[in-house]
């Protein structure tokens, strides 16, 4: 479901006419930013669907779980 949602969002973003909202020169960055951001999200979502054990926030958990336990006084 997450992968499907991210894909739909990417399509909506690609079809969106940025020139209506963004000032001149910024429109291209908005479009590319959206496509790249949602592309990354879509890739993450698809990977998550196939390998559910790999959580998108796993790197943060790996980095900060032990220091947080140390803050609790039980690290």
């Amino acid at each position, binding site marked *: 479901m997450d992968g499907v949602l991210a894909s739909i*969002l990417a399509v909506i*973003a690609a079809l969106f006419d940025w020139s209506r909202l963004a*000032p001149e020169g910024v429109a291209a*960055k908005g479009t590319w930013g959206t496509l790249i*951001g*949602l592309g990354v999200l879509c890739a993450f979502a698809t990977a998550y669907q196939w390998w559910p054990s790999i959580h998108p*926030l796993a790197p943060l958990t790996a*980095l900060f779980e032990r*220091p947080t336990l140390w803050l609790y006084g039980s690290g």
Partner: protein
Amino acid sequence: MAQISRYQVILMLVWTALGTGIVTMPGTIAHFTVHDAWLACPWILLGGGLCAGVAWIHIRRFPGQTLTQALHLTLGPWIGTCAGVWYAAWIFVSLATIGREVTAFITTAVLPNTPEFVVGLLAIACAGYLVYLGIEVIGRVNQFIMPLAVVVAPLLFGLALRWFDADTFRPVLADGWMPVWRAGIVPAFAYGLEFALSLQWVRALRTPRTLPWDILIAAAVSAFILTLLVALTVGVIGASATYLNYPVLEVVRSVRQGKFIERLDTLYVMGVVTTLVLKLSSFHVSLCQALQDLCRTRDWRWAVFPSALAVWSASFFFFRNLAEVTDFILHVVPAYFLFTVVLLPLVTYAVAAIRGKDGLERRMGPARQGMR
């Protein structure tokens, strides 16, 4: 650029901490202690104090610059951009967490049959629209909400006082200070450090030099309100606060006067949803300004729609349910926030101090032209 007053900054900061703090903090504190839960709330002052210290250095070393601009100016185009991306990612992950908390709260409390995707879309769209209108509009909405909160909140919680039992708090500190410290970790290092978000608003502040004091005032107000709220929650529902996701909601649901005044939780949910949307918009505007600094564009409104879409999607993608959100807040957020909003800026200011004033000013000239 539209500017916001000190009063608006303080209100924005207070609702930033209390927006989700009111909803989830009594529950997370009760994980560790019930008798002494009220003693854990003032720890938010520790986070507020750290943020005020960071802001004090920032305002003196980088007047008129946001934190992402300071990172770029001090650490150079490569490391500075990477640090800026890390900071923007911190705001993004925080936004996704808040977004998931909002949808979980609304669907649990009032709209159990509505798909969470729809609720999340509506909440993030409201916040996105506020952001698109600008930071001054967000400040004014915060001002508008304040009188309503001042009237409605004491009324709601005052009516619940008839069930209050002071014996719940005795014996005080029976298990020592350790459970209180553990319960204070989330208020101090998760909610307290959210005040650092204001470093992204520096360009819009009418009086940037007072920002450290504003953060301290907001932290003191938040600590006072949270202490009252947690004391009331524990006094009314007792030890069952440990097992409830939304203990404050249960306190409000307990209000019943005669056969006429009951189910006042609707008022509570309306107020909380409003403050949650304000919190979302405060984080969202900071994310858009970080993206503006990273992409070096003149305006940040182009980032509102794409980032809102990404946050909406990520909030469900990162957290499947409320248990995952709570676990993330309890076990990852404290160290993550401490590293990102305290250690990273302090290292940056230390590097800036070593490089000296001349080196920075040489960089500031062309950078200011590109970023404004």
